């Protein structure tokens, strides 16, 4: 048995304080039924992972216990619990409010926020390195397309969309960006990339610091206002997509601008016949993960299925999927905290079981955060699978006219 609750030490102001941070969001309708804990796939896997216990501490006013509860940082904020809650209580929002009260978030999380505020992108990529990397990708695409006149449309006003991405695509994975721009080219997209503001991520989605959240996202929207695209399209990164949408919904007071996920525009292009794909080029069985931020939280579910069914021959759904999907185990910024590795691999197990049950050889993971976790679980559990973004599979299925008699593509 645990300690008894000492009524005299309870602090009834805690609940109001948290409701205040959450703009009067009322979670006092919690019935204490425990469906959240039943919904949390991790509550049986390791200690300090029980949403019901946590919300009871908050509701009762057990200030010290709630503020120091490891649950606050163990929770991946995936909202799997909320799907089951008969009252729709958003535990992840409460978790985030407590995170915001932590003076220094763990691991690299605060470094990422500070770098983003200081440099305009979360990895501190300097302007000259950004521009030179874009020029380099342009050269690589000129060779790949055998078209020396190919240009990346930079700072083009009034385009159909402004493409915003994740600093890792510039710093660590330029081949991913090249793949995406190749698909844009094949679809003859009328888009632009800003030379000034381009990183759509916002780590404060996980640190809970709202002032910094705004400081990071606002310049991206000011840049969008200046370039005046019809919409913002965000790369295959669940947290970049979610945070950009959330800023647009809750904070942006300029000219309204829609924010969509890249899989949505791929689906449009396939329907409109702008993107021609030959799915017989992808014969290996593929399954696809539903990133929590994109699917459960932002409701983008059909477009990526439409795309993948037009991209691969043998698509296999995981069970459960959609809004009932199981989190990869590294949500809530866990990948930026090295100390979570062991816990991440424990949390990966239900996902591993899902993957293996499909018999697929390729995991399509349309999220930068999730794909790192899938690569780690692939190695840790020796799955022998290959993890790919959706864009890579789409690129592989492209039907396009590239002149055959032009000079050989140069390497590098």
């Amino acid at each position: 048995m645990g300690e008894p609750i000492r009524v005299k030490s309870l602090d009834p102001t805690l609940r109001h304080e948290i409701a205040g941070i959450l703009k009067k969001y009322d979670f006092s309708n919690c019935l204490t039924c425990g469906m959240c804990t039943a919904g949390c796939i991790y509550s049986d896997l390791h200690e300090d992972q029980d949403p019901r216990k946590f919300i009871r501490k908050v509701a009762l006013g057990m200030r010290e216990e709630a503020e120091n509860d490891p649950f606050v940082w163990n929770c991946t904020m995936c909202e799997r619990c909320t799907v089951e809650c008969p009252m729709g209580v958003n535990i992840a929002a409460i978790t985030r409010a407590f995170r915001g009260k932590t003076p220094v978030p763990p691991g690299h999380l605060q470094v990422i926020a500070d770098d983003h505020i200081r440099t305009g992108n979360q990895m501190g990529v300097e302007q000259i390195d950004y521009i030179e990397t874009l020029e380099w990708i342009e050269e690589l695409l000129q060779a790949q397309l055998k078209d020396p006149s190919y240009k990346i449309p930079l700072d083009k006003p009034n385009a159909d969309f402004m493409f915003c991405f994740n600093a890792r695509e510039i710093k660590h994975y330029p081949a991913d960006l090249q793949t995406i721009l190749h698909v844009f080219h094949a679809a003859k997209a009328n888009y632009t990339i800003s030379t000034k503001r381009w990183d759509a991520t916002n780590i404060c989605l996980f640190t809970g610091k709202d002032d910094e959240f705004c400081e990071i996202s606002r310049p991206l929207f000011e840049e969008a206002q200046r370039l005046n695209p019809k919409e913002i399209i965000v790369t295959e990164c669940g947290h970049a997509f979610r945070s950009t949408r959330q800023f647009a919904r809750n904070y942006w007071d300029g000219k309204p601008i829609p924010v969509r996920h890249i899989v949505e525009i791929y689906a449009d292009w396939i329907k409109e016949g702008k993107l021609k794909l030959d799915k017989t080029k992808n014969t290996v069985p593929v399954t696809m993960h539903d990133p929590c931020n994109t699917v459960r939280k932002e409701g983008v579910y059909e477009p990526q299925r439409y795309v993948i069914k037009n991209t691969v021959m043998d698509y296999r759904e995981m069970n459960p999927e959609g809004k009932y999907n199981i989190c990869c185990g590294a949500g809530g910024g866990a990948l930026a905290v090295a100390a979570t590795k062991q816990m991440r691999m424990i949390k990966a197990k239900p996902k591993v079981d899902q993957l293996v049950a499909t018999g697929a050889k390729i995991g399509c993971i349309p999220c930068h955060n999730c794909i790192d976790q899938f690569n780690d679980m692939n190695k840790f559990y020796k799955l022998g699978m290959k993890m790919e973004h959706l864009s890579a599979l789409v690129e592989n299925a492209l039907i396009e006219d590239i002149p055959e008699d032009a000079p050989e593509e140069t390497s590098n």
Partner: protein
Amino acid sequence: MSQITVGDLVVELDEDGFLEDHKQWTVDVANYLAKTEEIEELGEEHWKMINYLREYFDQFGVAPMVRKMCKDTGFDQKKIYELFPAGPGKGACKIAGLPKPTGCV
């Protein structure tokens, strides 16, 4: 945090397997880390990249952009992935003893 013993040396790694202190790096440590990154044996081309990354990090205190890695070593990205299956940041930089990159990686 975990510890590995390489010869007489005890080296501290973070949970993702990156060196806690890049000054603890030795050739033997690199060989050890290579095994954890699915590389049987470090060959001449691996060393070209590792030595380049170490020199760059000593000089600038950060890992180079992938663009710089390619231009300065003459390897294209495909080649880097052949040499270091986990890629430039999580594979090559780890074996070269650089700290875990910050950010969502």
